[in-house]
Every structure is written in C-alpha cells, then in structure tokens.
C-alpha cells in the first residue's frame, strides 16, 4: 500500500485515538506535576447549636486570587510521585538504613500505602492470569468435545459470570460469604466455628478476591479459545492420530502451538485487566485487607472532602507504566515471532 493511501486510511483512527486516548493521558500527566495553591487560612470563631469554638477557615478571596494567577496550581515536578503516598523514596531509604533483615525491611515497606496496594495488585495479576489461561483452555477443549445438542446451552451458561456486572457479581458473592449467607454459614458449620469469617482474615479475603476474579474473567478466555479451536486444521490432527499421538499429546503438540497467537492475545488482555483490579475490592468491602492501585485512585478522588487530583494523577500514570512494563516481555516475544516469520 502506498504511504499516501495508508495515511488516509489510518487518519480517522489516529485522530480519535489522539483525541480520546493520548490527550487525556497527557492532561492527567500535567495535572500530576502540580499541587494545589497555598490555602490562605484565617482564624475565626464558629457557632453551632452545641456552642462556639475557635476554628480556622479558608480565606476564599485571597486563595481565589492565587488560583487566578496560576490556574494549574503550584508546579511540584515529580514531588507527588516520590512522596509518602506513592514511591516514598525517603521512607524507603530510611527503612533500608534502619532495618537489619530483608524481612523487617519488607514489612516496613508494605506499611506504605502504594507498596501495600502494589503487593496485592501484582499477586492478584500473577495468580489470576495463569489460572484463567489454563482453565479457559480446559473448558474450551471440554466444550468442543461435547455432543452438538448440549453445546449451545453449555456455552451460554459458561458465559454467565461475564454477563453479570462485576460490582453486582461481587456484591452477590459478598452476601453469600457473610456469616448469615449460604456459603459463610455452611463453612461455619463444616469447621464448627461460629466466629469463622471470610471477611475478617487477610489471607481468606485475598483468596476470596482471587477466586472471584478467576470466576468473573474465565468466560472471556474460554470463548476466545473456543473460537480458536474451530480453526485447528483437521488434517494435522488426523495425521497426529495416525502417528499414534494420545489425546493429551495432541493438545500439547498440535492444538496449543496452533493457538499460541491467541494465547498471547488473551495474556495481554488479562494482564491489563487484572492489573487494574478495582470493583471486587469495593463490592467485597475488602479495603481493610486488600487494596489495589485503582482503589487508591478512587480513594484519593472520593474519600476526602478535598479531592487529591495530583495524587490520583500520579497513581494513574504509574498504573499505565506498570501495565506497560508487564506487557513488554509479551510484546517482545510477539515482535520476535513476527520477524522470524517474515524474513
């Protein structure tokens, strides 16, 4: 295709991508480099139905004047990125100097909000992704071998977890694992322990979130693999059979290599999705035991009366960076395969 034609072909896509993807990211990045103006504080007296107290208030006029002079706020460089709420360079250095063992060092690091969230986010990503890949393939192969009559209904039922909205799905499960819910009460009965609670223990909460994550995203990998299975060439399979390959050997040596590009695609999507885990934490009210990077952004924007835009911006940028780092090995592999195939 001549370069000129290619340019006109790609122009609409490129324009929308710049407008709706690149520019917002740039704007978030610029925001993350700035912090709020200095607030001019006045000492004042406030009275309410219960009495009067001395208090402080914001001098809105003076603050507004500062705001007008510099609409973006004060330039802070990468200050927000390295403060305690994020990479916490100073705290990390301090912890390094003050601790003797790696264990003590890590326990101090995991007390910092960003690293605490990163720990859960990475664990979730690296446990859920392989499970979903393997189970998805297994279900796809299983369903592919079903008789035609039950295939359709089985596919439909297998897709259900994906159809349910993540927040709703997690809320339903949250109520089921409650001490009065069907799962929670059954577990209490099995272990004969009335105080057993899936919500009170950090380990059980992590397991619950991970199981929910696998359950929720499984249909995606299953349906993509199932579609891929329809393209496996019959001839190759048949010749493998003639060579005496067992069912298992056919899966490992014929089907999986054939599906490899799809496996890479699904891995990419899963890594991205799982790294941004958010809804289950809100749905399960699991903030006490598990926090993710996306949840920190949510907290910065919502929990306090003053939304911390630069904190949220900084965490967003680092989430994007994290996704990029996770995807690099997979992308490099794809690029190598591509080069090998087209000399």
């Amino acid at each position, binding site marked *: 295709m001549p370069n000129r034609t290619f340019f006109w072909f790609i122009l609409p896509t490129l324009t929308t991508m710049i407008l709706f993807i690149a520019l917002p990211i740039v704007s978030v990045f610029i925001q993350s480099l700035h912090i709020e103006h200095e607030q001019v504080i006045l000492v004042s007296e*406030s009275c309410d139905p219960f009495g009067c*107290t001395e208090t*402080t208030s914001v001098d*809105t006029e003076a603050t507004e004047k500062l705001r007008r002079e510099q609409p973006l706020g*004060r330039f802070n460089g990468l200050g927000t990125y390295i403060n305690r709420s994020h990479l916490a360079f100073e705290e990390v250095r301090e912890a390094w100097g003050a601790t003797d063992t790696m264990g003590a060092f890590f326990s101090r690091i995991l*007390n910092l*909000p960003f690293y605490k969230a990163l720990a859960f986010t990475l664990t979730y990503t690296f446990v859920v992704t392989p499970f979903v890949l393997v189970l998805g393939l297994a279900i796809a192969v299983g369903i592919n071998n079903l008789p035609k009559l039950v295939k359709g209904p089985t596919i439909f039922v297998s897709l259900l977890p994906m159809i349910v909205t993540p927040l709703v799905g997690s809320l339903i499960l949250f109520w089921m694992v409650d001490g009065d819910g069907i799962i929670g009460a059954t577990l209490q009965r099995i272990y004969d322990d*009335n105080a057993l609670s899936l919500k009170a223990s950090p380990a059980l909460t992590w397991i619950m979130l991970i199981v929910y994550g696998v359950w929720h995203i499984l249909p995606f990998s299953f349906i993509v693999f199932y579609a891929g299975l329809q393209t496996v060439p019959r001839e190759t399979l048949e010749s493998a059979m003639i060579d005496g390959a067992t069912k298992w050997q056919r899966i490992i040596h014929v089907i999986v290599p054939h599906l490899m590009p799809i496996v890479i695609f699904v891995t990419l999507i899963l890594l991205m999705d799982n790294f941004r885990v958010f809804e289950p934490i809100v749905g399960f009210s699991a903030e006490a035991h598990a926090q993710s990077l996306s949840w920190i952004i949510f907290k910065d924007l919502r929990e306090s009366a003053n939304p911390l835009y630069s904190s949220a911006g900084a965490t967003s940028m680092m989430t994007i960076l994290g996704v990029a780092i996770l995807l690099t090995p997979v992308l490099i592999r794809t690029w190598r395969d591509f080069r090998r195939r087209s000399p």
Partner: protein
Amino acid sequence: MSLRNLVIAGAVTGLMGSAAWADCGPSGQSIRILASDFPAIHAVAGTAEAMCAGAAAEFTRNHTTEAREIMNAALTPNPAEYTSVIVANSTLTQLMNDGLVRPLNDYVEKYGAHLEPHQMITIDGNVMAVAFMANSQHLFSRSDILEKAGVSGIPSTYEEVLAAAEKIRAAGIMEHPLVMNMKVGWNVGEVFNMIYLAHGGEFFQPGSAAPAINNEKAIAALSIMRSLAEYAHPDHLTQASNETQGLWEAGQAALGIMWGSRGGVILDDEGSSEEVTSNTVLSGAPTVAGGSIPAATLWWDGITIATNVGDAEAEATFAALVSAMTPEMVAEHNDDAVWLIDGFKPGPAAAGVAATATGGAMSYPMIPYIGLMHNALGAELVDFLKGAEGAEQAIADVEAAYVTAAKEAGFLN
C-alpha cells in the same frame, strides 16, 4: 421515591392547605434544592415545596445519597445548578473552602423571626447555614440481655460497656455482643474521632493545619478501640450503619454504638421482633477514662444558599426553606429526627442524641482540613485494629499520611 414524596407532600398540603400562609419571598423564582436522602430532609424540603411551590416558577428537589460528591461541582458554575444545598458540619466546610455559599444574615432578619438563635451556624459573625436537626452516635442497649447477664443499669462509660460485654460473653449469651460502625474509611475514622475527643484530644495545633494527634490521648483512644473490637462482630471492619442496624434488628447484638438517626427506624415495628424493639434502650454516648465528655461528635443538618445564583432566587429559596421550619412541620414529623426547631417533643428515639448533646459532647470540627485528617485516620488505623502494628506506629502513619495530603492540598508547606 417519587411516590413517597407525593404522599408526604400530599399529607402536608392536606394538613396546612389554605390555613397556613407563608412568606415565600420574591415570586416567580426558580428554587432548586440538592439534598441527601433521608426522612427528615424529605420532611423539610417537602414542606417547603408544599408551601412555596405555588409562588415559584420552578421548584425542584434532588435527593441523593451522593449529594456530597456532586455539590462542589454543581455550585461552581455561575449560575449554579442548585440554589440551595442541605448540608451537615463537614459538608458546609467543603462548600466554604471553595466559597460556594453566601452569608444569610439579611435573609434571617427578613424571614427568620420564627427561628431559634441556636439554629444559626455562624462563622466569624456571618450566618452560613440554618440548622434544623441534630444527630450523633450514641449507645444502644438491650435491657433484657444486660439483665440476664447480671449487669445492673445501662453502661455510661466505655469501661462499663467493656465490662458488660465481657459479662454477656462469659454468661454464654453472645460471643460478640457489640456492634459498631467500624467500616474501613470514614466510619472507622469517626470512631477514633469520638473516643479521642472524649479523652480531650485536639486534632491540630491551634490556628494552623499542623497535626497534633501524636500523643498519649490518641494511644489511649486506640487501645479502647482495640478492646471494643474484641467484642465486636468479627466482620466489624466491613460494617457501617446498614449492617449494624441489620444485626441489631436481627437480635444479634446487645450493645451498639450507632447513629441516633437510626433510632426511629430500629424502634418502629418494621424489620425486627417485639422482643428487640421493646427492650432497646437509647442512651447518651459513653464517656471514657474518667472524663466527663461523651464520646461522640455532634452533627447538625441545615440549609445553605449558593453564592453563584441571582439575589432574588437566593432570597426566594431561603424564604421557602425556612417557611418549612415550623412547629406544625415538627408535629407532623416528630419522630423522624431530633429537631432543633421550636415545638419538638423528644420521644424515646431522640433520647440518645439529647443526652449526648446535653452531656457536653463536641461538635464535629468545622475545620477546612479535617476531611484530610479524617481520611488519613480511616485509612491508616486499620493495620492497628487488625493487630498488624502497634498504636504508636499507627498514629505515626496517620500523621505522615495527613501531612502528605495536606501538602498536596496546599494547607501545609
């Protein structure tokens, strides 16, 4: 909800009808109200609508539990989306930080002859809001269970609450007799606030945004919280008002620290058994460590008027809303809230809040940066409550988290 509004508005109109006459201020104006969503607020805004919608060109009410999240954005443009927001202590600060509400002194003079002086929320001499109801967390007790466990009388200090909880556990009646709103985030931060204030603690150094929580009072407050958590439902870190109310109504708790505004709902004949409702006693928030201040923060709900609207609209909105603050409205909705308006007859559902207020509990501080402190407390105390770190470390974490946020928000350098 709209059906409910219709019923309320209908009832009010039927009651007052042509008999009542209200001064609705300039006519033909647009009145647009943003408010949270609970019965007392419906009563005030609904009565205002019944009284003054006729004189106004437009009267709209948006009742949403998300009011706090949208109010600043909604009032920032000129003209603002709403002419009035119904706020509480913390949300008034949130609006005032951005200068989005106007002083009401002139309107109060013109339309507020029937208002009580204690309803005025004044900051530096300017009336910024007119309060109509009070709320606070306080003690709920099941008198029958206390009696069965051999506890005499209703506990009045946290030490007595803990002793009573231990007796109930020892008697084998309940393993976890206590319910508290300890959900991670705002709720658990609020529990700390209550107990810390009862120890006589201060959040900030006077006149500045520098934190002042790293002291023995905070450590003492945390140790009380840890002791309470021992007797609280195992899932307490996921429980807020709806969950604690549910446990109470299901008869699974004997002692509770819950909001006064839940009192009416718990005592009514819906959602619970006769055994629970007839034995539930509401009393003032307990004191702690030999102090005399009830461990609670007092809250009010009141009306404000937006800065960025026309003067005639502002005046009409104020006139309409205060026209609802009458003894007749209170008589109609007596048990919906602890009213600060003339004519209120405190019933059993109001006993807890009334006792807490007269006991001298502190108001929730109206300080511009209290939201950041509350947020830091809500996030950083959890590790301590889980037993993963010590009290000193938890307080140090809160301080560090607050300082980081306050620097970003421009309150500290």
